[in-house]
């Protein structure tokens, strides 16, 4: 308790007292400084310790392992320089394919998720009688983790589509969706858009609700068409939300793992194996930790680059507005 009383005094010192304290004996000053530091450590320490052990140190050691031939089992870790990276870019066809596929998937997924999400937001921002329940419905898939969604859609693609195809005769539903590399890719896209659109919708919706109605009314009185209002008033007003949504979908698409694992597991024949799944397989199935780390480092650099671009664009916007 006595400790606390002293600390209170420390905290309540005004600037004047602090200056006055500076002339006091150093031992007193040190103990006060020590107590402040102790309090700081007590408040920040637990979170920072967990963070360091769980995130910081493994990340940094991981960077080191990317330049070794570590296999995780034996204690032998040999420095191999850039060999892992050379191997990845010259010989590892699966990695190169996964990398290109992930980029292709990311582009497709961000475009579709944002278009669908924005469309849904436009719909449910109208004065519909069912708008609240519809918002819930569109958001619902987002609540459920990618793993379960992938399993749900496995059933839809395998049994559900077959049944719809038999009933309607539409050839689209009679394709072997998950059994063909092209359709399996689009299967993953469909599930991700279904999952992500509702989330993106919420952000666009919040932005749409901030568009001042008097400006819209004024434009209409001046004879602007619906499309003109959308193009020249609504779109510029929601532009910041577009930036947010684009980057949210870029990083979540680039990091896709759960749906990839549960829907196709990279199949057929590893043709839909995206980067995150490829890294996982390299490390925990092939037990080539060093190589897996090299992939993970490249993965990190891409994600970091995307984020840096995002932050600089957002900052620039903030300054302009």
């Amino acid at each position, binding site marked *: 308790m006595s400790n606390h009383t002293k600390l209170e005094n420390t905290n309540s010192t005004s600037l004047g007292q602090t200056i006055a304290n500076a002339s006091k004996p150093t031992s007193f000053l040190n103990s006060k400084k020590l107590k402040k530091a102790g309090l700081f450590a007590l408040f920040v320490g637990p*979170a920072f310790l967990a*963070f360091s052990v769980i995130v910081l140190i*493994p*990340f940094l050691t*991981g960077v080191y392992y990317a330049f070794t031939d570590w296999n995780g089992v034996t204690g032998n870790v040999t420095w191999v320089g850039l060999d892992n990276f050379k191997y990845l870019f010259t010989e590892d066809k699966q990695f190169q394919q996964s990398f290109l596929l992930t980029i292709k998937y990311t582009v497709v997924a961000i475009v579709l998720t944002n278009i669908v999400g924005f469309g849904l937001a436009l719909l449910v921002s109208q004065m519909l009688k*069912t708008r609240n329940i519809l918002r819930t419905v569109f958001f619902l898939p987002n609540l459920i*983790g990618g793993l379960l969604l992938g399993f749900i859609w496995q059933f839809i693609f395998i049994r559900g589509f077959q049944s719809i195809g038999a009933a309607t005769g539409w050839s689209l539903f009679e394709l072997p969706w998950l059994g063909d590399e092209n359709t399996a890719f689009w299967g993953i896209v469909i599930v991700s858009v279904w999952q992500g659109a509702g989330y993106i919708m919420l952000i666009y919706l919040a932005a749409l609700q901030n568009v001042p109605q008097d400006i819209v009314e004024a434009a209409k009185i001046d004879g602007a068409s619906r499309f003109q209002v959308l193009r020249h008033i609504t779109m510029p007003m929601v532009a910041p939300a577009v930036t947010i949504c684009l980057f949210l979908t870029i990083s979540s698409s680039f990091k896709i793992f759960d749906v990839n694992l549960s829907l196709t597991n990279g199949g057929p024949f590893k043709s839909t194996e995206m980067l995150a799944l490829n890294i996982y397989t390299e490390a925990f199935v092939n037990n080539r930790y060093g190589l897996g780390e090299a992939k*993970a480092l490249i993965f990190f650099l891409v994600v970091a680059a995307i984020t840096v671009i995002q932050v600089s664009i957002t900052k620039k916007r903030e300054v302009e507005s």
Partner: protein
Amino acid sequence: MENKYTGRTFIVEIVAIVLGLIFLVPFYYVVSNSLKTFAEILTNTSALPTVLQFSNYVQAFEKLDYLRVFTNSLIITVASNVVLIIFCSMAAYMLVRTKKKISNIIFMTFVAAMVIPFQSIMIPLIKTAGNLGMLNSMWGLVIMYLGFGSGMTIFLYHGFIKNIPVELEEAAIIDGCSPFGVFWRIVFPLLKPITVTVMILNSLWIWNDFLLPSLVLQDPELRTIPLATFFFFGQYTKQWDLALAGLVLSIIPLLIFFFSMQKHIIKGITSGSIK
């Protein structure tokens, strides 16, 4: 955006409802087929079940060891939330109120590390966790969630605490309140809105997380719902009657959570994403 309900609004409404139904189709298939016999699933996938087969659920419930895996998920999610909220709110508070260079450096480290994808950490992490005896332990996993969640949680708290006037705390200090007392009795109650947001974002993430628990919890007795579903689905692939009932069982807790906290969830997600 219209104020009057016109004929055009009616058409928009019809379109929206049709889209909503399309969004729900996968759920219809899963729920309706989870109540059919295996033969009926194969012959009549799209129709409603003729006789409701609740026995699918009884079997799936037992084979999933549902009560156990549900309890595991609950313990892990609640415990992770508690440690995240306690330690990250404290850390964020101290980082905001201590106007020193070190506070900035630590805060920026937390924020910058949010960029690191899990795949860039997992390999050495599992190795370290093995050495520290954190594998196959719920507590080990909870500490990992504290580590992984601290970046975003501190970031959200930090932004909120910055806008809390310091005068109240100064008055309490003069009244003889200890630093812990000031934080827990005065500051923490003011943080309630952001605490709700933090809780919701972390709960959805931790409850649905698959990869980390799959690497940490190898003992079948410790499995969480996503883990148990993964193994169950793998074991009963093509035995759809059981697999689907298991899937529905896995989704139910999320739906209950969502519908009991819907307002907070939508608010939390919107505010969490914009920051």
